[in-house]
């Protein structure tokens, strides 16, 4: 056979296209059923059990318990972090090696369910335990249940009671006007005029999640119920971002007041009087500053303006639609969604258990922030709600940041974000 340059190039081009389409074909569009024997080797991709403590819990306690109930199932674990979860899923899908069971964040179900990557679960699983409606909402897409909540992470406001007392402030702020005034009173500067303590640190958590919390407390929404319309670009969204600019302008907050990962937070260091926080701060305080808890110097409240609201994220467990051992995968999903699996997982991370049944557990009773979150779960709101969320979530921080650093006004940044979101939704 004679090989001409043209024939070689044509073959290369066709090969490349075949490779490209082959990748997608292997992602498995068919909805696997969970019938059949509960057996086989299945894989689990998890961002929840990273580190040696997490690994010990999963492989030393949880999976042996699962194996006892399902002796014919072997689980291979792929550990990751939330930062790398996206890449793991993308490369798994591209390589046709989507894990049988995957743990995902709140907001991730609609995009993956829309693309038929996840298999729906029997709806009666949503009634096995006592779930708050708000908690199950992010697990559903198009009326079907796709995941079971494991642990939740809420965003609350934490504050230093000793610094409040020192400033003569008796109770946490009830709305943003009070929040702004108190922040001014609580902020301190050194002799050169440089901020040594911020009154309020909204930048202690991810800017996206912080703005969402403020948006929800201003009674705003990210998207409409269909997930097709952007709803955050009204006054409520702009005001939420404007508040960050206002506290910076008041010199009661500073964008550079950040603590490096693993370091004590600004609240622990006494460099902020109020701080946006994840409920896991309680565990961090117990480890790093137990005296602050012992002396009752730290409190927490739910952010409120037009309504009280807290952002509720978390981790859910779902089954891949392309699993070859669907029954085994579903058995693992069901097992990970039980209170027996949830409680030690939540304890390990300082998270909120995903089922209300655990409200009476010792862990919840002794963890003030987790208790506050569970008591206020009816005020919880979640991010996501559109199939284009994976793309939009990446744009939020970088776009809002342009306003925070003074490159744009709050309205310009929100309008830009709305345009980017509309484009992403139009591509669905």
């Amino acid at each position: 056979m004679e090989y001409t340059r043209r024939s070689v190039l044509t073959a290369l081009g066709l090969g490349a296209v075949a490779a490209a389409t082959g990748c997608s074909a292997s992602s498995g569009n068919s909805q696997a059923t969970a019938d059949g024997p509960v057996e086989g080797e299945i894989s689990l991709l998890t961002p929840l059990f990273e580190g040696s403590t997490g690994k010990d819990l999963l492989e030393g306690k949880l999976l042996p318990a699962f194996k006892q109930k399902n002796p014919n199932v072997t689980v291979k674990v792929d550990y990751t972090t939330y930062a790398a979860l996206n890449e793991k899923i993308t490369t798994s899908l591209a390589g046709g090696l989507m894990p049988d069971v995957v743990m995902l964040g709140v907001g991730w179900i609609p995009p993956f369910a829309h693309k038929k990557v996840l298999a729906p679960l029997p709806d009666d699983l949503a009634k096995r335990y006592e779930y708050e409606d708000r908690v199950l909402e992010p697990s559903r897409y198009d009326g079907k249940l796709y995941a079971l909540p494991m642990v939740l992470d809420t965003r609350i406001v934490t504050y230093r009671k000793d610094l409040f007392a020192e400033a003569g402030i008796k109770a946490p702020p009830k709305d943003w006007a009070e929040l702004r005034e108190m922040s001014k009173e609580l902020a301190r500067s050194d002799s050169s005029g440089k901020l040594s303590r911020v009154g309020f640190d909204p930048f202690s958590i991810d800017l996206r999640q912080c703005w969402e919390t403020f948006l929800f407390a201003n009674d705003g929404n990210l998207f409409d119920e269909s997930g097709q319309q952007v709803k955050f670009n009204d006054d409520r969204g702009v005001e939420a971002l404007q508040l960050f600019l206002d506290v910076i302008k008041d010199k009661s907050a500073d964008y550079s007041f950040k603590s490096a990962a693993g370091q004590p937070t600004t609240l622990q260091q006494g460099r902020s009087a109020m701080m946006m926080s994840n409920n896991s701060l309680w565990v961090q305080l117990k480890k790093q500053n137990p005296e602050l808890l012992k002396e009752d110097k730290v409190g927490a409240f739910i952010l409120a303006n037009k309504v009280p609201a807290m952002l509720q994220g978390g981790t859910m467990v779902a089954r891949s639609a392309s699993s070859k051992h669907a029954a085994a995968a579903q058995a693992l999903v069901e097992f990970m969604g039980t209170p027996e699996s949830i409680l030690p997982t939540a304890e390990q991370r300082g998270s909120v258990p995903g089922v209300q049944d655990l409200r009476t557990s010792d862990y919840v009773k002794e963890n003030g922030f987790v208790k506050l979150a569970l008591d206020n779960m009816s005020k919880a709101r979640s991010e996501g709600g559109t199939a284009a969320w994976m793309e939009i979530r990446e744009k939020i921080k970088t776009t809002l940041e342009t306003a925070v650093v003074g490159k744009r006004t709050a309205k310009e940044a929100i309008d830009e974000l709305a345009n980017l979101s509309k484009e992403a939704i139009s591509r669905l």
Partner: protein
Amino acid sequence: MAPTRDRVRATASGPSAAPPRGRGLQRARRRAGLLMVAPAVLHALIWIGIPLVAAVVLSFTSYDVLTPPRFIGLENFRDLLSDNVFRRAVLNTSIYTFFTVPVAMGIALLIALMLNTRLAGRAIFRTAIFIPQVTATIAVALVWLWIYDPRSGLANAVLSFLGLDGPAWLSSTDWAMPAVIVVGIWQGIGLKMLIYLAALQSLPTDLYEAASVDGASKFRQFFSLTLPLLRPATFFVFVTSVIGAFQSFDQVYILTDGGPANSTTMMTYEIYKSAFREFRMGYACAQSLVLFALLLFLTLLNRRITGGDRATR
């Protein structure tokens, strides 16, 4: 020549075989040549050729990994034209390259010149300067994260000692890019220095002896002899440094995550975000092609300006 050719024939066909005809020998040589280059060609075809063709094909599609690619013509490229963040990434990458490549090359040449002398303990210096090159960027970046920490970092401690108020290096839109550039320069010096040093050690000494006899000063020798003779090395260092700078990713990924407000985002970082965080593989392929075209243009331009890797003597 004839006896030599006969010897070659005898060697090629073995001592006992009859001497093959000219055409047969040519064919045998060609086959041997093809066999020898086959592994390299196969490697290039599998790891460079196919991905390149796939990237070109996918750049005309909407492909999210989850569903099969859908042909959308030039839409990805049209989107690129209106993508402010990617434009910013192109600008940032150009700024980063503009500052890191010449500065690092200049410092590397200077150090190589110093290490090319009979300096005491030069092996230690050489190793110390090369260490950043072989250290994992993650580790390097973590050290720099501490250096740039506005409260407890080394950079602001030094500035404070000098009576200056240091900025919040990585949170400031004005200072984040210079901070990343400094890391890029520091990390890039080692390899460039090594290449220059190897080139310096292979320069012919007779020319320098002649120049000395003619009364040329060291300064004159450097500009009239060393620099022109280093042209092939400079071309190589420049091309690889530009490519390296355009592909820099890890420093930004760890130090700034492209922020604040996209002030340090780079082309490779945007490609990564599009592909693996936003699931826009087709768009990421279009972005990659722009990067490829830019690098090709810069390499050809440099070849045209400097005369490529031809040495002057």
